[in-house]
Structures are given as C-alpha cells and as structure tokens.
C-alpha cells in the first residue's frame, strides 16, 4: 500500500536530520526529570508509573506539535508536495502515511522509556497490566495530538503558526475537563460543561492509567484522530497548490 511506502520514507527522514534525536533526548530527559522530582517517584512508595503517566500528555502537548509543524509546511517549502501529490495514489494515503510515520516515531520515543518499567519492577511488584494500559493511553493521546498538528500544518505555510495553532487546539482538548473550565462553564452555561467534560483528553487518559480500557474511550480517541485526519485531507485537497 502506498501509505506504508510514504510512512517508511517519512520515518527514515526523521532519523537523517537531528530532529529525531533532539526530540527523543528532550522527551526522555524531561519525562525522567519530572517523574523523579515533581512526581516524587521514590517518595510516594508505590510500585506504579502514576507520576510518569501524569506528565506524558503535558509533554506531548508541546513536543508533538513541534514534530508535526513541518509535516506539510516542509513539503510546500521544498515544492515536493507537487511531486508527492502527482504520484498515482489517492491523496488520503499520503495523509495517512505521514500520520503513521509520526505516530510510529512517538511509539519509539515511548518505548525508550522502558528503563522506568524495569526500575519499578525491580523495586516492587507493580501491576504490569495497568502499566501497559497507561502506555496504550499515551499512544492514543499522541495520535490525537498528531492528527491535530498535521491538520494545522496543512493549513499554513508558516511552521511557527502551525506550531502555535496546534498547541492551542491540543490545549483545548487537554484543559477541557479541568475543574477550572468545568466549574466556570457549569455556573454560566451548564450545557457546555458536559460537552467540555466529554471532549477532555485528560479525563479519558486517566481511565487508561487506572488500567481501564473502555470502548467509549477508544471510540473517543479514534473519532478525534479520524476527524482531524479528515480535516487534513480536505485542506490538502483544496489548498495543495497555494
């Protein structure tokens, strides 16, 4: 399938530039530092990865848009978008290929946090099923943010604008369920408070870190990711030559 060929090329492209290494090193350093300092990994005396999972979505909030901002903007700058989209494949396959490559890259970055899993298994007897569910949640959050970032990258030639827009939209999804937002809304527009809670990535993610993989949460992440990939495909179709 053409999408997989595009994905393979993209993924290889990450590793020939310093982007991949900077991303992975910063992600690992920050995830580690936050887990052990702010998260109090040792002090809380529990054999789980709770503190780590608390910080991953917030790290993704900034790092994922940094990864996606060049996704289409770079193709436009080099003119290769004209080459890519005049090859004989449906346009959605190019969209899907780029998304899959970025997602696989996030999976690699997450997989490299394995020393944390080893550490917690060495120190105690954690529930590894819960840890696995947490990682699945991280991957789904990454997927949702990536699709948002990719869609924003398709809308503008400017990488900085793509980054800022992506962070802003991802932040809406991250903060929608927070008490500040829901209390504010329930006092004024109670109807929207429920909607906001329903759109919250953070609340859905918390179910995963508790080891609960519910069908409705999977449907939520699939819908958000699918919707923004669809937006991406539509925008590319309409604005490819701009």
């Amino acid at each position, binding site marked *: 399938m*053409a999408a997989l*060929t*595009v994905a393979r*090329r993209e993924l*290889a*492209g990450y590793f*020939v*530039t310093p982007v991949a290494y900077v991303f992975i090193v910063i992600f690992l350093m920050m995830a580690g530092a936050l887990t052990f300092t702010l998260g109090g990994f040792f002090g809380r005396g529990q054999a789980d990865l709770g503190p780590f999972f608390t910080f991953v979505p917030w790290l993704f909030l900034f790092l994922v848009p940094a990864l996606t901002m060049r996704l289409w903007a770079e193709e436009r700058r*080099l*003119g*290769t978008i*004209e*080459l890519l*989209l*005049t*090859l*004989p*494949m*449906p346009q959605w396959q190019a969209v899907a290929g780029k998304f899959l490559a970025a997602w696989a890259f996030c999976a690699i970055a997450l997989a490299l946090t394995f020393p944390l899993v080893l550490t917690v298994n060495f120190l105690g007897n954690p529930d590894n099923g819960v840890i696995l569910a947490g990682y699945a949640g991280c991957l789904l959050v990454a997927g949702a943010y990536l699709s948002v970032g990719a869609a924003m990258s398709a809308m503008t030639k400017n990488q900085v604008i793509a980054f800022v827009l992506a962070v802003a939209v991802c932040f809406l999804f991250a903060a929608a369920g927070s008490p500040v937002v829901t209390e504010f809304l329930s006092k004024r527009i109670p109807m929207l408070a429920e909607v906001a809670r329903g759109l919250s990535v953070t609340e859905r993610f918390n179910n995963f870190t508790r080891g609960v993989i519910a069908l409705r949460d999977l449907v939520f992440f699939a819908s958000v990711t699918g919707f923004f990939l669809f937006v991406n495909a539509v925008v590319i179709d309409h604005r*490819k*030559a701009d």
Partner: protein
Amino acid sequence: MAALIEIDCLTKRFGAFTAVDDVSFTVDRGEVVGFLGPNGAGKSTTMKMLAGFVTPTAGTARICGQDVVDRPVAAKRSLGYLPEGAPTYPEMTVAGFLDFVARIRGYRGSEAAGRVAHAMGLTQTEGVRLQPIETLSKGFKRRVGLAQALLHDPPVLVLDEPTDGLDPNQKHEVRALIRRMAPEKAIVISTHILEEVGAVCTRAIIIARGKVLADSTPAALEAPGRTLEQVFRDLTTAREAA
C-alpha cells in the same frame, strides 16, 4: 484512436486573475509539443492542471482517455511529470528516492530495482546513486527529477523546463533522450529557450496571458522568412501593448 493528451477549454482563475484562459489542444503519440511563452503566461499552471495538482476552474483535461479530475489515480499512472524546479527530497540518496517513487508506483523487488537502474541509465545518474540529493549539482538534481518521471516508461510525459540549469552538453543529452523516446510517447515540454523548440519539438504552442496565440510546427511559424524569436516577440509583445 483518441489523442493521448486531450485538453478542452481549460481555464484557471485565481481570484480575479485568469492564469489560463480557455486553452484547448490535443497531443498524439509521436508528437513533441514545445510550450512557449513569457514568464507568467500560464505554462506551468496548465501543466499543473494536466498533472492533477491544480484543480481547473473550468474545462477538462484527459490523459490516455482518463479525466485528471474524475479519475486522478488512473490518469497519473500514465503520466510522467517533472514539476517546475524538479523538486526532490534533499536528504534522500538518488537510489533511495527513485526506489520510493518506484514503490509508490507499485513496483516491488527485482522489478523495482530494474526500473530504478534503467531510469538512472537513461539520465546518466548511476555515478551518484548513493549520494544524498542535496549534495548534487543543479544539473544532477534536474536529471534525478527526470529519472523519476521516466521510471515507469509512461505513454505521456509532461516536463516543465527539463533542461533548465543544465550545461550545454547535458542539454544536448536530454534533448537526444527526448528525441529517442518521442516515437512511442506524447510529450509536452515547456521552455523559454527558443532554439530548443527547433531542436526537439514537432510542434510549438505559444501562450501569453493564459491564451494560446499560435499552434503550429516550428517550421511553419518561421516560414515567412522570420526567426522563431521574431515570431515569439511579435506575438507576445503585441498582446501586452494592446
């Protein structure tokens, strides 16, 4: 048998500006059409529409009978397209890039390798096969773009300034290559080098301000004792003065 390229009343407007205005022509097998015109005349926009990259405002374009808007994948399969500026992925090696294009075009294994080797042979790029494209000279980059367009031995070739940036020897080789391929294909090349038209083209189309001003053999255009350059200047500047 129908012509390999059929363009019918093709029009493209960008806002109030009409880049291509009601252009119609057909190209049969064995023809090499030179597409001439001043900068900004609408040559590249017409070619982009033919390649399915820019969506026409009105009119149709068909490649081997397949409409480029309604059946884009089928149309693109029969087309070899060199976009303006010959964009390629700078970080990839020549062989890696051509292998990527071969895979998207559905070739696998030894067939893909054979196609890549053949395309590199035609464009004399074997010597740099393992070099990253960004390290190559302008002439080599252009030839890698050409190799990509020739890879699948398409019945229709659309080449936007194929000899731009090449030295006289390389120009000569590319022209010889086009002449060799001409009998089995329908070829459209855009250029603003007028002597190139006499050297390779069986037909010249002069376009300015989006309109076709002349469509004839180079010999017929020159017939009344004038050079092609005089004809070109008369046609294109007369319109601008009007």
